[in-house]
């Protein structure tokens, strides 16, 4: 915000600080332990009276000088240069808050240099006693400089009370000061051994070589034991929030932690091996390997520490991308490109022309501090290659809210869209595409003679908007539609007939065969459940297959026939964010195996499950096994959110405050095609926006005592005076909320006025007479008459030659004559 950014791509993401600091810390911690080691070796050499041993001690001190004073010191300065380049704001905070800590450390550096030079050049000049005192002084000053830097580094991870007081001592003697100090001292001891191996294994004379190498082995083993113990102390000194992130939530920390232990064991084993008498030719190469392992140990530890500090560079004070949390509200309102100082004038406002360049600058300022482009550090490309532009924008809007590892995106929605455009369109070269909307095909209205017909047959799907997802990996929404039929014997007093009648259904040509018998239901009608049908026909993707329903009497004679659409959509938008294309790429439908695996991978990462493993072993992952799905009668686990609450609750983090767009992201919303759609009422008009839709589910789950609801509600923050709890599938918008007394509505106000139970759902309800289901006359939900396409209006067309609800101003369809009283419900076109 305050400073320009050094724009890096391949070598971005913190490459320079990672490389330089790991190398420096390895050598510097060696320098601390090695300082003591020098004196110990000198004592042993003098005691032994061996000239070879003394020569070794002198050679070793030369090696020490050339490594630690030159390389160690200069790489230390290099860290300083690098942090100024990569994180100037934070570096200046360290400078300004701890200048006298740095200055004190500098005094120790000077004393180190002088003592080391005196030690090295004074082998022959100084008395044995004086020489060892100088060596001891070197070690003392070396350890004291560790003491100083330890405070400042520890402050970055756990600033403790400094966050409130701003006091130097609170920041310096922070919660992890002492554990980190002993931990690093233990590492220093270990590293002294590791580096000692390198020079020690080269000693020609066997006895001295044996003594030195065994000493190094002792230091390595003892050091690693201390590392293990002090490491435990260190981890447990982390404040609870950081401990949780580091130990329970962050996959990245987990990886580095595992590396640390494995490499640590290898170092231990290597050290022990070298402790055994080894021939000189074998010892040195092994020593080099162990030395490299030590570098790995340093790298993994420093990476753990860095990862445990996320999303901050100074915990609680400043994000890794140098933005201050307290500035977020201003930035989100004003825009990052306006709030930051170093932005070209023509990029302050995002336009269609500058969108990609604006996105590039946003990436450099907010992302490049940790993400390289095509490089070794957290390469952004594989992280983002599964997203569409819209999907990634959705992800950015929820970033950092569930997985607290990431800082939030800072900026306006336009800027966020620009960043997404840069990453998806520019970096990945993906042009946005559009799915063609599958319109229902032709309507072949069945024959009907109102003079002659004895019966009138109605048929409708339980769901007018039905999604199926059976990828073979995840069983999210199994296939199995329900078709209903109502056979009515016409007359002044019509009768619902089922006894002695048989009802069959058959899906139209071109679809995989699905036909069968319908069984009498509990209301006098017929029902066929579990009908499995796919939306693929000879004409390609068509989610509106037509079922011909035929009623026959006992003799097998056809008494009535009609047609109804049995919708099945397979274009769920999971792949917007989960990638993977489609199961059927030609038809662009169905959840692919790649999409499914990505979903499981995310689920595993966030919830610490092992579903990808399960899937890879060939088992289908059934969502309802854990997440109750009342629609298909699955009870799930009673300590887990129900499926709808989990799905909508989790995704609401990324899709809230988007109105209707949120629905369009995932659901095949063109399948909403009845009169309400035709009138321009969107999903959100009845179901509420994402905050309502997900919030209502989560509130009900919270009432049911499910803990997971709290975490999601904390992010979603629905207005609890407005959003009403509900159970999925059974508590849905109630027609009568708007259609008061069944009349035409004055205003649209259906959200948060849910049906109390399943029986009150439109699809299950009866008219006032209790005989006829609402849907029999009005059509399937979401395709209510008059629907937008005639394929859904076939029954009104068949029986009334219009598209209105059955019986609208025309009771004779069933009653064979006009009625003067709207018995089934008020209105009915009679008033």
């Amino acid at each position: 915000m305050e400073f320009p950014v050094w724009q890096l791509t391949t070598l971005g993401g913190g490459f320079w600080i990672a490389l330089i600091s790991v190398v420096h810390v390895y050598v510097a911690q060696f320098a601390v332990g090695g300082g003591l080691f020098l004196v110990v070796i000198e004592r042993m050499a003098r005691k032994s009276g061996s000239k070879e041993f003394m020569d070794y001690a002198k050679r070793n001190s030369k090696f020490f000088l050339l490594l630690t004073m030159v390389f160690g010191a200069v790489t230390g300065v290099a860290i300083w240069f690098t942090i100024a380049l990569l994180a100037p704001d934070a570096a200046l905070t360290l400078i300004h808050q701890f200048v006298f800590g740095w200055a004190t450390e500098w005094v120790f550096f000077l004393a180190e240099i002088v003592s080391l030079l005196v030690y090295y050049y004074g082998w022959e000049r100084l008395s044995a006693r004086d020489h060892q005192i100088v060596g001891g002084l070197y070690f003392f000053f070396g350890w004291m400089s560790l003491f100083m830097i330890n405070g400042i580094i520890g402050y970055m991870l756990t600033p403790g009370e400094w966050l409130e007081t701003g006091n130097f001592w609170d920041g310096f003697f922070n919660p992890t000061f002492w554990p980190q100090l002993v931990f690093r001292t233990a590492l220093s001891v270990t590293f002294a051994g590791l580096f000692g191996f390198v020079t020690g294994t080269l000693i020609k004379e066997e006895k001295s070589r044996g003594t030195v190498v065994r000493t190094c082995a002792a230091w390595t083993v003892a050091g690693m034991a201390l590392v293990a113990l002090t490491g435990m102390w260190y981890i447990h000194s982390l404040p609870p929030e950081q401990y949780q992130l580091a130990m329970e939530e962050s996959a990245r920390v987990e990886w580095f932690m595992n590396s640390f232990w494995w490499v640590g064991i290898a170092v231990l084993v290597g050290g022990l091996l070298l402790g055994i008498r080894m021939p000189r030719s074998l010892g040195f190469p092994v020593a080099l390997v162990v030395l490299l392992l030590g570098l790995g140990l340093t790298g993994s530890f420093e990476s753990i520490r860095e990862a445990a500090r996320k999303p901050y560079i100074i915990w609680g004070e400043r994000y890794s991308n140098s933005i201050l949390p307290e500035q977020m509200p201003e930035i989100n309102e004003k825009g990052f490109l306006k709030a930051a100082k170093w932005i070209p004038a023509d990029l302050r406002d995002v336009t269609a022309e500058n969108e990609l360049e604006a996105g590039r600058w946003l990436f450099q300022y907010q992302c490049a501090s940790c993400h390289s482009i095509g490089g070794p550090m957290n390469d952004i490309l594989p992280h983002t290659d599964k997203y569409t532009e819209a999907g990634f924008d959705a992800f950015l809007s929820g970033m950092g809210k569930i997985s607290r590892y990431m800082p939030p995106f800072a900026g306006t929605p336009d800027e966020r869209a620009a960043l997404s455009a840069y990453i998806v369109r520019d970096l990945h070269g993906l042009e946005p595409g559009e799915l063609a909307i599958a319109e229902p095909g032709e309507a072949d209205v069945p024959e009907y003679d109102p003079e002659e017909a004895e019966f009138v047959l109605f048929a409708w799907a339980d769901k007018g908007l039905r999604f199926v997802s059976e990828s073979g990996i995840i069983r999210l929404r199994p296939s199995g539609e329900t078709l209903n039929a109502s056979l009515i014997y016409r007359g002044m007093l019509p009768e619902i007939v089922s006894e002695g009648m048989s009802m069959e259904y058959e899906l139209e040509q071109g679809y995989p065969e699905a036909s069968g018998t319908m069984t009498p239901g509990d209301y006098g009608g017929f029902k066929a459940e579990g009908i499995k049908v796919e939306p693929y026909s000879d004409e390609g993707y068509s989610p509106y297959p037509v079922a011909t329903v035929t009623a026959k009497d006992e003799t097998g004679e056809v008494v009535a026939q009609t047609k109804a659409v049995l919708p099945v959509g397979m274009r769920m938008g999971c792949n917007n964010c989960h990638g993977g294309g489609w199961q059927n790429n030609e038809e662009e439908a169905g959840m692919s195996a790649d999409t499914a695996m990505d979903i499981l991978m995310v689920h595993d990462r966030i919830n610490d499950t092992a579903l990808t493993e399960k899937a890879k072993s060939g088992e289908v992952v059934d969502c309802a096994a854990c997440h109750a799905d009342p629609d298909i009668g699955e009870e799930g686990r009673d300590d887990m959110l129900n499926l709808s609450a989990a799905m909508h609750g989790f995704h609401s983090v990324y899709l809230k405050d988007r109105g209707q767009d949120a629905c369009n992201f995932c659901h095949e919303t063109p399948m909403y095609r009845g009169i309400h759609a035709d009138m321009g009422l969107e999903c959100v008009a009845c179901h509420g926006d994402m905050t309502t839709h997900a919030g209502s589910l989560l509130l009900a789950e919270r009432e049911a005592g499910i803990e997971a609801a709290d975490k999601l509600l904390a992010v979603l923050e629905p207005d609890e005076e407005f959003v009403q709890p509900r159970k999925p599938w059974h508590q849905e918008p109630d027609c009568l909320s708007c259609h008061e007394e069944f009349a035409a509505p004055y205003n649209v106000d259906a959200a948060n006025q849910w049906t109390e139970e399943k029986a009150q759902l439109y699809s299950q309800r009866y008219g006032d007479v209790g005989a006829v289901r609402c849907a029999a006359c009005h059509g399937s939900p979401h395709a209510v008459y008059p629907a937008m396409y005639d394929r859904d209006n076939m029954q009104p067309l068949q029986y009334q030659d219009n598209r209105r609800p059955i019986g609208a101003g025309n009771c004779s369809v069933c009653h064979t004559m006009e009625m003067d009283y709207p018995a089934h419900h008020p209105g009915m076109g009679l008033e």
Partner: protein
Amino acid sequence: MNPSSLIPVAQTIPVSWVWFDVLLVLGFWAHILMMNAVFGGGVISLLNSGGKTEPLARGMSKKIPTMLALTINFGVAPLLFLQVNYGQFDYAGTVLMGGWWLAVIPFLLIAYYGFYIWDFRYKSLGMSRNIFLALSLGCMLFIGFMFVNNMTLMLVPGEWAAYLKNGGETMLNFGDPTLLPRYLHFMTGALAIGGVAVAIVGKRAGKEPQVTTGLKWFARATVINIGFGFWFLVALPERVMLAFMGGDALATGSLLAALFGAGLIIHAAGRRNLRLSILWAALTVLAMALARHAVRKLMLEPYYSVTDLEVTGQASPLVMFLVALVLGMCVIAWMIRLYLKSGKEA
């Protein structure tokens, strides 16, 4: 655009700015004396690396690596204090320099190891050792140039907007007319002070010709440097130049002191008076360090004054530092004395 809009917000300082300005100048003084000894001494050694005067190079080779260690160490202190009082400017310039600034590090490592190879392998390499010496000196030329860029880029916020126009690419300070004369002035000054270093080393080794050589370099480089200094002066923005010509007390005073010192240098060196040469060298460089500081303050005047900084008043860490400094210096002094004494006994 208004350059001020690019200047980052300054952070708070614990105690009065005076502490940091004083420590900065003193630290820089120590650093530049050491740097001069290394670079200047190294150049003189390279030009005396064979034949009769070769012992000069040999003598210097044993000292230069140590002096480089001290150069680096004494560089840390002033850079630290600079960043306290002027960090927002220094870091803006640093980031603009990008990889150029970071490149100082590998060059420094090469220079440092190069000097050690030149020293530790002096005999075994024969004349090839001079390749390493030359390489190290070349690296130092690069390092010096980068430092001059950094220290001048931080003074010209008016130039910073170029970053916004070039798509955010790294830049150096080539647009600044003071860049080249400043660089030449510093590196020539190094040759002069390097001469003093050579003379000191020669005196301690009892080699009078070396003292003469050193003092000749001292005098002649100083004369040339007055020319580069003049160029530097007139290249400054008029406002700043006039400050040095009577407009500002610190600026004019330090410049006059330095010129006077230059005169004393030429006189003492001409007389082959080593002790006075050392004294005038040290004092003249101090005056120049003050003049340099005055340039900084004057260049930043339109945008900033250290007196604007907010002081938090946390004095106890300063006490810690002063105590550590005193105690540390005592131990250091003891160790050095121990070394020097033991040499006499041995």
